[in-house]
């Protein structure tokens, strides 16, 4: 263990217990602090201890398992669904371009399925190179062929960084890739940067439902792999003049023990996809009734937006799960998010707090949603919304 308690110095003051994010410190029967298995070596307790009784034992971490100079380049796994490129892939190319420029290296996309024309589009979205396989096995998503081929490509070409979308697909098969390559994987990153001194990737992600942010490193293994939530990074520049190389990938003999029998789309009842929408009008328990959503749909219609919901409203059965925003629903990043009757539990906030402008309408002036709101209206939404709809309709003429 790298963090231990100097039992001679420990006074049992319990200061360390309150600073530990991982609940890893307990006072034992002898009145001394003890660090248990939950310790993540985050070092938060070291500076907190007034006695200097918590110390770090310098111990070698995992030995460096690679030749640093062998690993070069930034890769983006470009996800396609039903043959069309997912929006998150373009966001990752935007983020990957910046990282590659800073490292003075190449940005490559990896595309399984779709067509060479799509691969060409990825180049215009700033990729220098696209590894593409149009093999029919990738038409539907199965974890084994996806992970097997990506592992093979990484072993052959040795990228330093690999980024993928934190989507149902990325979050499902990328862990297999990291497990097989014996390297680190950081989930759901919200920001990525290069450490100026070491060149390592600094991966920032929320933990404990967004109450804490943590910076994660993968210093001794390559590649450094991260998944990034959709709508967190900004899309890159589209350059129709950009030229690059498409590298056809030989898939070899891929097999899958899972098989997709059928893909069923569920109509969301909205013209606009929640994660693509510029304006979202969302409702929570404060609507009090399924009928409240009629008002929200009307407002969304006027604004040309779409309708979201908190988990409470979905649990009440007022609206389908596909509208849910938050930790267990979708992360959204619209230009304007209008929260109606949503109190703002952290699980909801993590799904929408990076929206450009947040408008909150709530009866309770103490509701936490007002802490993140750009504009707040304290009052009855059944009074405010019809007025707002009327005003906006007038303004539209």
């Amino acid at each position: 263990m790298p963090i231990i308690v100097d039992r001679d110095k420990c006074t049992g003051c319990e200061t360390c217990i309150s600073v530990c994010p991982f609940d890893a410190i307990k006072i034992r029967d002898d009145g001394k602090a003890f660090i248990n298995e939950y310790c993540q070596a985050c070092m938060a307790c070291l500076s907190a201890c007034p006695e200097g009784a918590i110390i770090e034992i310098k111990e070698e971490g995992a030995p460096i398992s690679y030749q640093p100079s062998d690993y070069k380049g930034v890769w983006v796994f470009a996800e396609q669904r039903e043959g069309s490129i997912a929006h998150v892939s373009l966001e990752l190319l935007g983020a990957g371009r910046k990282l590659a420029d800073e490292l003075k290296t190449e940005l490559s996309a990896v595309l399984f399925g779709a067509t060479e024309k799509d691969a060409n589009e990825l180049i215009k979205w700033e990729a220098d190179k696209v590894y593409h396989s149009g093999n029919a096995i990738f038409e539907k998503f199965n974890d084994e062929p996806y992970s097997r081929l990506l592992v093979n490509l990484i072993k052959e070409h040795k990228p330093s960084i690999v980024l993928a979308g934190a989507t149902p697909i990325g979050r499902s098969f990328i862990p297999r890739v990291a497990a097989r390559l014996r390297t680190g994987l950081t989930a759901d990153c919200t920001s990525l940067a290069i450490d100026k001194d070491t060149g390592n990737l600094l991966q920032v992600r929320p933990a404990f439902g967004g109450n804490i942010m943590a910076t994660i490193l993968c210093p001794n293994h390559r590649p450094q792999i991260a998944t990034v939530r959709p709508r967190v990074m900004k899309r890159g520049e589209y350059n129709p003049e950009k030229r690059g190389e498409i590298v056809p990938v030989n898939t070899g003999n891929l097999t899958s023990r899972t098989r997709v029998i059928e893909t069923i789309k569920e109509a969301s009842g909205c013209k606009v996809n929640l994660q693509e929408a510029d304006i979202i009008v969302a409702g929570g328990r404060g609507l009090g009734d399924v009928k409240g959503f009629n008002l929200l749909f009307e407002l969304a219609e006027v604004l040309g937006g779409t309708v979201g919901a908190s988990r409470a409203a979905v649990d009440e059965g007022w609206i389908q799960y596909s509208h849910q925003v938050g930790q267990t629903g979708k992360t959204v990043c619209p230009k304007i998010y209008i929260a109606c009757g949503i109190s703002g539990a952290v699980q909801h906030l993590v799904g929408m707090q990076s929206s450009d402008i947040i408008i909150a309408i709530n009866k309770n002036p103490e509701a936490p949603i007002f802490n993140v709101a750009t504009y707040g209206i304290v009052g009855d939404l059944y009074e405010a919304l019809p007025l707002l709809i009327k005003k906006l309709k007038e303004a539209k003429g």
Partner: protein
Amino acid sequence: MNIVVCIKQVPDSAEVRINPETNTLIRDGVPTIINPYDMHAIEAGLQIKEMTKGKVTVITMGPPQAESALREAISMGSDDAVLLSDRAFAGADTWATAFTISKAIAKIGADIIICGKQAIDGDTAQVGPEMAEFLDIPHIAYIRKIEDIKPDSIKVQRMMDEGYDIVESSLPVLLTVVKELNQPRLPSLKGKMSAKKAEIKKLGDKELEIDEKDTGLKGSPTQVKNIFAPEARSERKILAGNIEEQVNQLAEELKQLKCL
């Protein structure tokens, strides 16, 4: 059918917060619970057990006090419980955690392994699929319905962004489940009695024959560099007056933003 359910004891995340002034964690009296998604995994295991006359083993890795989570799972109807607890396991990231638990599952033997889709403290959703890779078996993530189970195959509904897929897999398989799958049952009185008496099997790194360099902090490719409180939003415009006046101001602002 041998069913193994992986669970994790977690702090009730909604109650953990950072004090923005001191940058320290406020966690006074934060209770620990079985990770909510794992409750649905336990329920799924019990339902499959009842359908196939199988056996459910729950397994967790954590400090000795994680035993209480295992006893709770037994009170719901699980048959056996295994605790992986060892100082050598401390500080494990998802790679080292998945590696360690998969070694234990390989020892126990399983036809179906079930995990919650993610734990609410880390939210990574990585340990399940990583274990499947270590065990060299297929996995299906985000299961919302089990349609059919045969002695050598399973058919399920997998949640996707715009709907769901119906997916078939051979057994053994690892599944990660979402809350839409089922409603976890409450412990029975008989269950509570057996939970009290149940013997919890404890395994450490010696029993699992894991090299020190592949577990705990030493076996973890990722490291936590630092933690900090999320930034608060700064720009804020207060609307004043009665409801009508507030709405008028808001409509004005929306017009300014050219969103009409």
